[in-house]
């Protein structure tokens, strides 16, 4: 407790008032405020340490708490309420062309190796693409190939089948059906010329333009 200083020229404000003052200063300050700065700003004779202790206690268990940051004091959101400071935004994105092609090759040719996917697509397949498909749980690792290097193979998953509404991989329309439905016509694919080298950068995450659409 503070010792009463009867010899000070000006009476220090009551403790409750000192608390209020510190509360206001810490609230409005753009940086944590050191004890020295608080003392300088408060009227003469205030017991800053005691007032801070009171104030800290007052905010215990509240939505904000009084914390020491370096040699200063500041109000901060209670850590358990951090989730309120985050806003979750759900976005739906279309898979990139690289990802959907890779996925299609795995679906039609499974089990298939990365080298085979690259041979079919004619470009290298980025790790990002494979990782994304693995993360989405649309593909998983199959058995290793019994060929030199024993490369890993990829196969599609139940999640894949569920997503695309297929009972089994056999339900995928065959090449003949694709041709019959006109999907195999020799027409340029939407969004790019054949052998478009830009496909080499398989970015799945690059569609910043698209992001805006969903904000």
């Amino acid at each position: 407790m503070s010792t009463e200083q009867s010899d000070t020229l000006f009476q220090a404000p009551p403790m409750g008032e000192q608390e209020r003052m510190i509360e206001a200063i810490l609230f409005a300050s753009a940086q944590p405020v050191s004890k020295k700065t608080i003392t300088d700003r408060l009227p003469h004779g205030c017991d800053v340490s005691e007032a801070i202790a009171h104030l800290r206690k007052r905010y215990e268990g509240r939505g904000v708490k009084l914390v020491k940051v370096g040699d200063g004091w500041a109000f901060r959101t209670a850590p358990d309420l951090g989730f309120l400071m985050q806003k979750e935004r759900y976005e739906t994105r279309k898979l990139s062309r690289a990802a959907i092609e890779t996925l299609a090759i795995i679906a039609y040719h499974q089990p298939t190796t990365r080298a085979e996917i690259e041979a079919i697509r004619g470009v290298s397949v980025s790790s990002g693409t494979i990782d994304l498909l693995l993360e989405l749980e649309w593909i998983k690792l199959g058995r290793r190939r019994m060929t030199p290097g024993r490369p890993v193979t990829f196969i599609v998953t139940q999640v894949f089948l569920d997503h695309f509404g297929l009972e089994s991989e056999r339900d995928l329309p065959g090449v003949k059906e694709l041709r019959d439905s006109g999907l195999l016509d020799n027409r340029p694919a939407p969004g790019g010329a054949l052998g478009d080298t830009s496909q080499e950068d398989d970015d799945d995450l690059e569609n910043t333009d698209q992001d805006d659409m969903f904000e």
Partner: protein
Amino acid sequence: MMSEPTKEDIEEFEQTTKQRVASEAFLIDVNGFEGPLDILLTLARTQKVDLRKISVLELAEQYLKFVEEAKKLRIELAADYLVMAAWLAFLKSRLLLPPDPTEEGPSAEELAAHLAFQLERLEAMRRSAAKLMARDQLGRDFFVRGIPETVSHNRKITYTATILDLMQAYAHIKTKDNFEPLHMRERDHLYTMEQALERMRTLIGHAINWGDLNQFLPDGCRDDPKFRRSATASTFAAALELVKEGKMEIRQDENFAPIEIKTKAPE
């Protein structure tokens, strides 16, 4: 010859000077006024009555006097001050005369009442403005949170693709270069080892003596070098296969010499 100014003269002079200074101060300050209504409000205040009880007639006279003073002092007043003077002169005459029942439009009392209302309203707005500015103000008397925490936006991305996307993507690859890794392409100009083996098996029985491997090549090799190359390799491989099976013998006298084969006599 001029007489010495008396005390009275001096006093009178001082008095008029004072008046003149006062009136000039008022006039010179015209620039500081915001138009005739502002001046009228200032003049009205000199009546020291509630604006609701203001004598508009008296106010009109005060204003006209002010305009007269300005003319005397050759101060150029803006047009709107003169328009107001003309209007007030008209109002004054209307207020002094008994009402003419044949005259159309609003009565002099109505016009006077509206002028009083305008003055009262302007006064009220000025008082309100002063009260507003006297309030505690943000950034002067009270303050916002100094360390605002921004709300962070977490993105949760769901990727979508339809079966159609999948099929189109596959179709796109298929049409890109007709590359079919799991089905051998129809290769017109190639001769597989299987083909060579099949041919050799049917011919081997006839090869009792050593003969050049080239004799066993299929028809059509002469015209197509690419096919010939392929057939040579396949036939050679097939021959090795048959040697391995013990059905044939193979020999070559030296490097690049013709390769000869013959059927192996059963032991």
